[in-house]
């Protein structure tokens, strides 16, 4: 049991260690977030002095509530996030289970797999725009040459455009899930595997009753990180479709951008970004309720 004085001094030291980071976080993230909240109650336009702002109460939230474009964008965002995360989790985990043994030692393979993760999102968008091009893109060329399929308007057809975006994200981020899950699988103590082999477990039992439950916390963290990051996407859609056709690929982050810079309505854009923030917070809290990766034993 520490004395009060020792506890106090330990606390002060801790704050000294934390202070510089907290200062930057407060100036660079917390204060802007606070400004978002503040601005969502203001009428303020770009290119005008800050003094010209006007308090408008909850006008933007009322507008948001009855604005079909925002809700369309809201559902597009949820659909996009749902499919991206679902496909990446299933494919990434499946591949990790299938290839757990095959890639042992194949370090070149892991290097190849992490490449998409390192490519700048803006470049990812440009590469895929080139590949998806309906007229000259390679994908359509080979679909035509090998399978006789007519040119697919990947980015121009309202039923396909969102799928194209999902394909792009799946290309970039499935390796992430794969690598995490693989590391989790390799961390399972081999005694466990041996024991269940001796008990006569077949592949299905081994996978679903032994391996997956044992890496549950790994899966949750992977899921959490994808949910957090998937809603940050804006560059790729910015380059690929600018939200079209219609609003079929208008992710909320892009809608915020357009409202701020095309419509000049920074107040309304702030209100919409609070909606985006709400989605991310609710989903993350939901996943976090299963496990908090940063918990230390003495936290309250």
């Amino acid at each position, binding site marked *: 049991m520490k004395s009060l004085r020792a506890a106090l001094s330990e606390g002060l030291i801790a704050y000294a260690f934390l202070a510089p980071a907290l200062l930057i976080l407060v100036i660079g993230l917390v204060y802007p977030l606070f400004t978002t909240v503040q601005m969502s109650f203001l009428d303020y336009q770009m290119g005008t002095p800050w003094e010209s702002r006007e308090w408008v109460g909850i006008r933007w939230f009322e507008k948001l509530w009855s604005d079909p474009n925002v809700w369309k964008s809201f559902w597009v965002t949820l659909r996009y996030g749902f499919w991206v995360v679902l496909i990446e989790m299933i494919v990434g985990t499946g591949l990790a289970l299938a290839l757990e043994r095959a890639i042992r030692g194949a370090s070149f393979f892991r290097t190849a797999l992490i490449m998409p993760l390192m490519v700048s999102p803006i470049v990812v968008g440009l590469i895929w725009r080139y590949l998806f091009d309906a007229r000259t893109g390679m994908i359509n060329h080979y679909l035509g040459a090998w399978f006789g399929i007519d040119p697919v*308007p990947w980015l121009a057809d309202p039923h396909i455009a969102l799928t194209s975006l999902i394909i792009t994200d799946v290309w970039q981020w499935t390796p992430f899930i794969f690598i995490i899950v693989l590391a989790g699988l390799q961390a399972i103590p081999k005694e466990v595997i041996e024991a269940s082999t001796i008990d006569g477990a077949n592949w299905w039992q081994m996978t679903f009753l032994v391996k997956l439950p044992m890496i549950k916390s790994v899966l949750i963290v992977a899921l959490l990180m994808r949910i957090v990051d998937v809603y940050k996407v804006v560059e790729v859609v910015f380059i690929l479709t600018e939200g079209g056709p219609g609003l079929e690929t208008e992710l909320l982050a892009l809608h915020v951008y357009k409202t701020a810079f095309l419509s000049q309505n920074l107040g309304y854009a702030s209100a919409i970004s609070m909606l985006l923030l709400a989605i991310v917070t609710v989903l993350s809290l939901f996943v976090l309720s299963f496990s908090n990766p940063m918990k230390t034993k003495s936290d309250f």
Partner: protein
Amino acid sequence: MNHFTKSAGQAAAAALGALALLATSAVADPYQKYRGTEIVVSWPSLAHFQIAEELIPEFTAQTGIRVETDPLQYGKLRDKQLLEMGKPQGDYDVVAWVVFWKTEYVQKGLLTPLSEMFANPALVDPAYDIADITPAYLENGGKVGGPQGYLAGPSAGLYGIPFSAQTTMMAYRKDLLEKHDLAVPTTYEELLAASRLVHEKEGIGGLTGRAQSGHQANDFFLTHYGPTGGVILDDNYRPVLNNPDAVRTVEMLTEFVKVGPPGMTAYGYGDMVNSFVQGDAAFYLDASKIRKTVEDESKSRVAGMVGYALHPTINGNCGSGTGGFAMGIPGNSQNKEAAFLFIQWMTNKATDRKLAEMGGDPIRTSTMNDPELQATFEDYPVLVEQLKCARADWRPLIPEFPEIDAQIIGISVSEAITGQKSAQQALDEANAKIEALLTEKGYYAWQ
């Protein structure tokens, strides 16, 4: 209000100073005072501006004014200009705007009225013949504050000089029309029929277009809605977009998309140009500045195969619009006079002709009527003819236009031509949204 009295005072003071200067010394070199000044120009990365860039060394040699340009994709230009012009001291001395941004800039008090400069004899070149600039261009790009707010009139002021202004005209593949024994379409019915035929027989697109959701789709719509004589807002700023002509236009565009080059509903301007110059579409009907790209063999596979014709008509209405850019001076520029000298030099008769020779877009009547240029460039006779009926008022250049353009009509049109909504439904929705927006902005306060 304050702004105007203040700037008028400044102008007067500047004029007096210049007069004093004239009186004391014989000024042989009007640029003397500005040698060594550096100005920064914000303009788009379009062909015309790339050509103008080549003339800058000549300007610097003559005037001693150094110039740095900041070329950006035109869709991303406005944010940057607003950001810089909103600061107490901005980075730009000259800005080139798309015509529909001008009213917003003026309303926010971000531009210098050019009268301040034209009031100063020390700055104005006596040979600078402003009446020679195509009136529709000057009105469309530079005048703000007439009875309609965004056009000319007794109360209007001049804020910019058109630069890379355009109207619309048609370019077509001569070889394909000949092969299929088709006449050059003069009406939209003929254009649609020809597009269908080419699509069926050649397997390539008929008319190409830029129909990406947002600004591009709205431009696509307005280009083809113009000839009906239709408008978006009536004289009282009430939207009338869901009229039968507009609905028919959208339905017609849906037909064009069906026989257009693949993926057309995701094209921006660059994709549209690519599709035409790479031979994937037979017709181009958009800004009148395509010739330079068509004849550039490093980019084009159709050099020498393209002819130019007037914008087709609907019910006999000629109806090309006017658009493009104009250059003016931000209110927070520190080098307004040097900036004015740059604009004046870039738009004077000699430079305009030179730009035209190099493939740029002329703004002056004298350049367009130049017999030598008329003989060299296949599209000039068409351009002169086309400008006779070009409308300055084919879209309302109000400050809210960028939002109406990219966030309302551009999205509704995109939804309609990709089959998500009927034309009538899409335009009804757009109409209601425009009305709500303009109500919010106080447009109907006097009604």
